[in-house]
Every structure is written in C-alpha cells, then in structure tokens.
C-alpha cells in the first residue's frame, strides 16, 4: 500500500485561466470588471491608430478612444459572441469616427475654412523627408470619401481580411473588394503629382 503510494505522482492543482477575448468577456459578464483593463490594453493601440488615420490628426484621439471603450464597457454584457470581439470593437470605433466627422462637417458649413478642405500643399521637389511623405499619404487618405477610406484603412493599415472588414462595416465581401479597388484608384489619382517620388 505504501509502495503504491510512493509510486503515485503528485499532480499539483492548478487553475487554468483562458486569456482570449471571449474568455475575458465571459468573466466580465460574470462580474469580474477588472478584466476589462486587460481587454483595453490589448486593443487600445489599434483603436487609437484607426482613429488617427481616419481623422488625419492627433487632436481627438484620446477623447474618441475613451468614448469607444466607455461604449464597449456599457454594452459588453450584451455581446453575443457571434463575431470576433475586434470586429465589434472596430465597428464601434468607425461609428464614433463617423459621428465625429459628421459634427466637424456641420461645423465646417458654419465656418467655411476647415481642416478638411486643406489642399495638399507640398511641392514635389520638397519631398525629401519621410515624415513629409507620410503626411502627404495621410492627407491623401483623408481626402477619400468615407465609404472608400474605411475599408482601405482596415485592409492596408490594420491588415484585416475582406471578410472581417465586411463584418465590421456590415456589408458584403464583394462590396468591400470593389471599394478597396476604387479607393486605391482614387488615392493614386490624388497622389499623381507626387508619382515620381511615391509610386
């Protein structure tokens, strides 16, 4: 009996904690609100960067990012686990950006000179600096219509698949394919004056 006992391996008792998004959300729904911080830390940079590229400026990033995550916090208990958490998160982010741009547009009607109407003012000869190129590209993207801009950003900047983008925006994959193509064509036209340096 003792021998048997000696031969038995002692298995240490461990608690398995799954750390994927769904598990964290389930824990949040069960009342553990502390996991929300982990979710935020995991996705905050993507959200901030989407806002940065979409709005073409750093002004509202912090406020809008906070608004996005506060919305997530309030609605997370109603999350249906039918799509990825990121798809849902990006949808909220894009909607927040849309709302903000709409407000800016209304304001720009009242005050005719607004940032959105700025022209690409760099002369091609002065494009030596990488940061200038970045600025030109960002402004070029900002000039795209919102319908084309968002799929292009989600694809080329965030690396989402057509399927994920379609789910985020709530449309068909075919539409996304077409929009991304049209966005690239439009962007090429916008960047035409800098073709030599950029393309």
């Amino acid at each position, binding site marked *: 009996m003792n021998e048997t006992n000696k031969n038995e391996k002692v298995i240490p008792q461990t608690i398995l904690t799954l750390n994927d998004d769904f598990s964290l959300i389930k824990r949040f729904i069960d009342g553990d609100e502390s996991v*929300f*911080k982990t979710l*935020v*830390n995991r996705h*905050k*940079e993507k959200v*901030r*960067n989407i806002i*940065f*590229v979409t709005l073409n400026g*750093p002004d509202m*990033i*912090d406020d809008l*990012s*906070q608004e996005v*995550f*506060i919305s997530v*916090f309030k609605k997370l208990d109603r999350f249906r686990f039918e799509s990825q958490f990121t798809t849902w998160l990006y949808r909220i982010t894009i909607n927040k950006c849309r709302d903000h741009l709409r407000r800016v547009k209304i304001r720009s009607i009242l005050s005719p000179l607004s940032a959105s109407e700025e022209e690409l003012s760099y002369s091609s000869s002065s494009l030596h600096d990488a*940061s200038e*190129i*970045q600025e030109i*590209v*960002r402004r070029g*993207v900002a000039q795209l219509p919102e319908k084309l801009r968002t799929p*292009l*950003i989600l*694809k*080329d*900047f965030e*690396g989402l*698949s*057509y399927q994920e983008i379609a789910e985020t925006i709530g449309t068909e994959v075919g539409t996304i*394919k*077409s929009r*991304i*193509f049209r966005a*690239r*064509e439009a*962007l*090429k036209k916008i*960047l035409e004056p800098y073709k030599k340096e*950029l*393309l």
Partner: protein
Amino acid sequence: MMKWYNQNIKEQLSAYLDDELPKHEKDLLEDKLISSAELRTEFEEDKKVKELLSSLKRLPEDEYFATRLMEKIKGEKKTEGIFSFFKKPVVAFGIVTIFLMGILKFYPNFFPTFLSKQKTNIIDFYTQNLKPFVYVADLNSEDIFNFAFNNNLPLNKEDRQMLQLLRDSSGNQFVEVTYAGSAANAYNLPAFVKSLKLTNDQKQAVDSILLSYSDDISSHILVNEKNTVAVNPSIWNYHNAIRSDLLSYVASVNKEVSDKIMPAAFVENNIASLHRIQQQNGPDEDTYFVFSPDTIFTQKLHLNKDELKDEIHKFKKEMSQHTAELNKIKRFKIDVKVFPDEFTSSQKMKVMIDSNICRVQIPQDIAMENYLPDFDSLNSILDIAFDQLRNFQFDIRVESPEKEETAVYNDKKRRKTTKKFEFNIGNEGFSIPNPDSLATFFRFYFQDSTKTFKFNDKMNEDMEVFKKEMERFKNDMEKMKKELQKELKKNSEKKDPIEI
C-alpha cells in the same frame, strides 16, 4: 465593354494583391500578369500604394490610457449610480407626478399663489417709482391743443413716440402707444388761431385754457425709469373737456364763426354737460393701463391726486431753476415694443400689438358711456363741430340763395343757419379736402337727409338728368293713374245692380 473588362481585371488585381482571390482566379490572373506588361505596371503601383499605407507611422503607445480610462469609467459609474434610477423616463415621470399631487393635496392654492406672486412681482417691478409725465416732457399749449384736436400727445418727441386716443365706428375707445408715429399734425394751434382770426389777447386766452389742463394730463400719464408708461383711461374726459372749453371760447369770441361750425343739435346746455365730464372721473379712476417693455396690464394705482399736483408744481418750479438737470431727465426713453400675451388674455382688456403700435381697448365697465348716458351723443357733437372747424380754415363761402325752399327752424335753441346750403367755391382749382366730413352736416339740414352730396360739376349734371328722369317718371305715373281711374269708372258702370 473593353472598359468594363479592364475595370474588372484591375479589381481582380487589387484583390490578388490582398491575397483575397480563390485559387483558380489567382492562377488565371497570374497568367495574365506574365503576358501583360501594362497589368504588371498597374500591379506595381497598387503594391506601392499598399506599402505606403501599411508603412504609415503608428502612434507611440499610450501606457496610461487604460488607467485613465478606468478612472473615467469609475467616475461615470458613481454619477450614474446616484441618478440611474431617475434616468428611466417612467420613474422620473412617476416621481414628478407624485410630487405634484402631494403639493396639490396639501397646498391646493400653490400654483395659483405662485403664479399670482410672479404676476405681482412683475407688476411691482414696473409700477415702482412712477412719476407724473411732466418729469419727462414739459407740455406746451400746442401739445395740449394737438391732444384735444388731433387726439395725440408726444411721449418722446425725439423718437416720435406718441400717445393716441382713438375711437372706432362702434364707439369703442382706445388708448394707443405708437412708436415712430406721425410727426406733424395737419391742423395745429397756429392754423386754429389763423382761421379764427384771433387777436393776441385771444390767443393768450386760448393758451391759458390749454395750459390749465397741463397738470391734469400730467397726473393721468405716469412714467418711470424702467420705460413704463401708465395711462389712466379717464384721460379721455380731459380730451373732451378741453374740446368743450375751446368750443365755448370760440362761441364767446366769434359768434359768426361759431354759428357756422356748430351743428344744429348743439345746444347751449351741451357745453355745460361737457364741462361736467371733467369733474366726473367714474368708478375706476385709479385704474391705469400700464405699458411696460415686457408686458401690458391694468393696475389700480392709488395716488393722491392733490399730492400729485403739488409734486408737479414743485417739480415745475425746480425745473425752471435747474435746466441742465431737466435735460438729463428729458433723455428718458420709452421703448414699448414687445408684449407677451400673459396679461393680455384678461377678459377686460383687448390689446392689439404691431411692431410700432400697442393699442388697448378701454373696457366697457371703465368707458365713460356707462355712467354718462349722453356721453356718446355729446362726443359726436364735438366731433362734428371740430370737423367744421377744421374745414373752416378754407375759405368756403356759405349762403342760402333759394330762400323760398328753405326749411326754417324757429326754435330759439336751434341756430338760424339750419337752412338748405349750397357751396360756391370761388377759386376754380380749389377742392374741399374731405367732403365726406361735411356729409353729416348736410344730412342734418337737408329735407332728404339720406343723401350724401359731393360737390362737383359732374354731380350737378347727374342731378339734373336725375331730376328730368324723375319728372318723366312722375308724368308717366300720372298718366297711368288717370287711365286706371277711367278703367275703374267704366267697370263700375257696367256692373249689374245687386239684387236683394
């Protein structure tokens, strides 16, 4: 077709770049890429665009973002915790309803009292420190004449703000504050003096009659620094009293003119009756119409008239000593523009508001007619007399050439001029400014009183034609009558005697 094909290929190329094409389409496109240099260039450009976008600099990581966010969420949760219950509309509505029911149960008069208090506050605010009108404008004889004759009194001469007394065709009386009202009156005191050919002494007498009403008018219009104007509706009495006094004076100094302008209904006793109006203030002598910048309302202002008059005298005395200060006071501006209908819905008051006018109808229970039954007729007599006086300034020759047709009234109380008149206008280009105003006059004297005559050649011609037509009609009728009589006679002769 070719364009669509190219478009489709390019779209496929974009998807190929994103590695989003199914295997067979991918193979097909790769074959095309090998064979088409143009497609390869297109592909390279797309690739470059993609690289540019994916190489866009990311924001530096914000390490404290989550901490800040969690703090914000904590703060929001705290606030929500307190008010979340109230955020549900049903709950909020329920609480408010219970609260209101509680108030109404224990303090049923809460809302009426509250509203009345608010109303009282507004009334108190605007009726504070009301002073006689003389504080802002020193009335001269011309102003008072215009008040009597043209029914207007300047409240603020610079801004052409006027107080006007009006009467509609139904006899309703109105008090009106007009902003930017008419500046000049067509018939004024100099015109009055000129038309009556008054001597200097007589003119001075007229001035003294007019100025004797200055204090009374001043005490019936009160103003304060909050741009409030309070008007006592019995100011209408003074308006009539001044008119009656002026008429009496005209009658005493110029009998000839008086005979020409006075209507037949004007008996000597009328003047005495009109004088009585002055003493009769009516039951609501303390009721004032208050025109304020925000609203308009009626309010009983219990003022000691004697004290008020003393104050006016005192002020006038001071006024002559401190001309500089007076100028300061004269800068007072009355700016009655906007009136919400809060107080205008009262049953008693009828208010008409325009951008420049605010008109209040004097309620029937305040109006003079109620306690002076003959007021209306006296008032119309005054109107007629003044209309004649206004027209008298033009040189209209009045004579009665057809004496045999004239109906002469022997009654001593009536004036001898109550005959049939004809106007002979000496100057050819001359026209009577307002012949209709004389219609009442003529209607009274003509036998056929329902006709209104206009005095021009065309009318005379028409009258001649009309007379001839009537003559012809009369003859026809006579003829017809004779024929009928003949017919009747014949018939009666033919009739068999009645057998009994």
